[in-house]
């Protein structure tokens, strides 16, 4: 009997070790926003190469923490790591951390105004004014003067925002910080901020729920969510002075418009970008990769995956409601991927 158990155990060990040696498993954790496309990528890539990914969408903050602690092979985040976090990583892991944009997302402003369809025009001044609580009525002259085509009622503006910490809020508050000094000093940028006005809804669905039910309300949600649920969205005045819609092309164009200001580490927020079609509230989502990984076969696997993700992988983006990277950015990334130490 004892021998039998020993034999079974031995067999199991052999089996497990043979499975793990044949199939490499990469562990990652982080952002929830790109989870849908990452799952698709990991699945397709697994079928192609046999490399298995285990990705836990615990949130950007959690992803960064796990990367710093070195408990995962890669991290993912909707906001780039801060200088302080990069320093922490270096102290703990003794290597640099690299940021790789994978796809793009955007934040759209949605609203509920009876009689007003999609395409309400908003300028940066109006949007920041509304979220700062300075513009409180829909028939405020600052709104009516740019929306001569619509009848705007004498109705209070009901502001909705995300209550949970999110990359969406980070991009949105980052944009407002860029275009409004009052916002920058009073509120600032973050995954959660101290909102001057409005109600918080949990998740995109929470904000959309408040907006859908409250006449006269305004809120912001992820582009993907707005498209899937066909919410009305505002066109925003970009840096070049054009009113642009949040389309995938305009979002990609924002990254292209930022290309000449792109820092070498690709750690950049592309809100309020140059370019005549650039949608102003756009952003990257990043994979966080250790430059000098201890396990070189894992490093090799990640390099191959990254190369695939920024080239072939991009074709899955639009179907899953993400904006693909423009080719200018892909070029920069390919150069950067080659800096990952393989030996």
């Amino acid at each position, binding site marked *: 009997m004892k021998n039998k158990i020993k034999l079974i155990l031995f067999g199991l060990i052999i089996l497990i070790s043979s499975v793990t040696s044949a199939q490499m498993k990469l562990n990652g954790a982080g952002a929830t926003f790109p989870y849908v496309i990452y799952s698709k990528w990991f699945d397709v890539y697994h079928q192609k190469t046999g490399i298995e990914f285990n990705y836990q969408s615990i949130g950007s903050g959690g992803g*960064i923490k796990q990367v710093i602690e070195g408990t995962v092979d890669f991290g993912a985040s909707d906001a780039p790591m801060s200088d302080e976090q990069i320093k922490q990583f270096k102290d703990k892991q003794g290597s640099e951390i690299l940021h790789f944009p994978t796809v793009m997302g955007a934040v759209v402003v949605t609203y509920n105004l009876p009689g007003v369809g999609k395409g309400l025009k908003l300028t940066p001044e109006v949007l920041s004014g509304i979220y700062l609580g300075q513009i409180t009525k829909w028939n405020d002259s600052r709104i009516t003067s740019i929306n001569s085509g619509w009848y705007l009622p004498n109705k209070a503006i009901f502001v909705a925002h995300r*209550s949970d*910490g999110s990359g969406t809020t980070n991009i949105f508050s980052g944009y407002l910080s860029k275009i409004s000094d009052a916002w920058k000093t009073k509120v600032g940028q973050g*995954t*959660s901020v*101290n909102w001057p006005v409005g*109600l918080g809804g949990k998740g995109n669905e929470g904000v959309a729920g408040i907006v859908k039910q*409250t006449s006269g309300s305004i809120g912001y949600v992820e582009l993907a969510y707005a498209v899937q649920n066909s919410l009305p969205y505002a066109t925003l005045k970009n840096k070049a002075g054009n009113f642009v819609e949040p389309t995938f092309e305009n979002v990609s164009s924002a990254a292209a418009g930022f290309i000449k200001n792109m820092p070498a580490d690709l750690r950049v927020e592309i809100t309020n970008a140059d370019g005549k079609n650039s949608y102003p509230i756009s952003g990257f989502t990043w994979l966080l990769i250790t430059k000098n990984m201890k396990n070189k076969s894992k490093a090799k696997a990640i390099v191959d995956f990254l190369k695939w993700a920024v080239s072939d992988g991009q074709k899955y983006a639009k179907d899953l409601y993400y904006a693909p990277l423009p080719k200018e950015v892909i070029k920069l990334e390919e150069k950067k991927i080659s800096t990952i130490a393989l030996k």
Partner: protein
Amino acid sequence: MVSFTKEQIEVPKSDEVKTSSLSVLFSRLLKPGGKNVGDFIFENTTRLFAFILLSLVLLMAYEMFSKSLPSIHKFGWGFIIRTTWDPVHDEFGALPFIFGTLFSSLIGLLIALPLSVGIAIFLSELSPHWLEQPVSLLVELLAAIPSIVYGLFGIFVMTPWLRDKVEPFLGNHFGFLPLFTGPPYGFGMLAAGLILTLMILPIIASISRDVMKAIPGSMREAAFALGATKWEVIKIVLSSSKSGILGATLLGLGRAVGETMAVTMVIGNTPGISSSLFAPGYTMASVLANEFTEATSDLYASSLIEIALLLFVLTIILNAAARFIVWSVTKKYKADY
């Protein structure tokens, strides 16, 4: 069902003085009919299980305390009375959340208590037998509904109703009270309080019913025999089960304080302190659920953990109070009968 008592382990003084107490202990353990090894092992294994539970609670308390140290050092006791919650500028204070938790729970309790006691009185004293079981079952079924379902009901059914009907009515007729001022959003303290009412009602109602049923029938018969009316008998039953109902209420309060999902969906999630029921608020459990995953700075995470610690302490206090009251009521009965 054998357990160690002092007499069994202690060395008898007269005949076994010379043997060491340890060997006596062993001989007792192995003696058939007395103590045996199986009992010993079984007892200590179950004891271990009990201690695992205890150590889990202690470990949680320790972890929360040690992880919230940065925040405790930075803000001290002031954390409890600070009202700013600004993750961007690393300014944190728990008062709006403590206020929101207590205020929304209190609203829930004030509405749920009379309703539940009414239900309990009907079920234990008045209802015909064939009705009692199905209604009790339904009341208990309410407790089994997941809180997200209550939350969705809150968003899609209750808040529009509150915004369009209830709040304008209250504002127009009772607007002079500070409780009913401000614009009717639908989302807010009132919505949270009402959702909590629904959620704690089954707990209070079913425990209160059990407590009333535990009052001996002879007491009712005696009262009837002395010429009491039905209403007077109910008054006697109520006064005897007062403490038990109070205990049930505290258990309900414990549930209300810790409720997360449903409240988050309807309370408006805005840290602020307002006397108005229409104003949005925030609770301790909600802010944890909302912000913990994306809390990147150390102080931010630490402040959230300190809120969790405060919530933990609050819940322990409430549960201890409930236990104490239930204990005092059973003691009283033992003394009386």
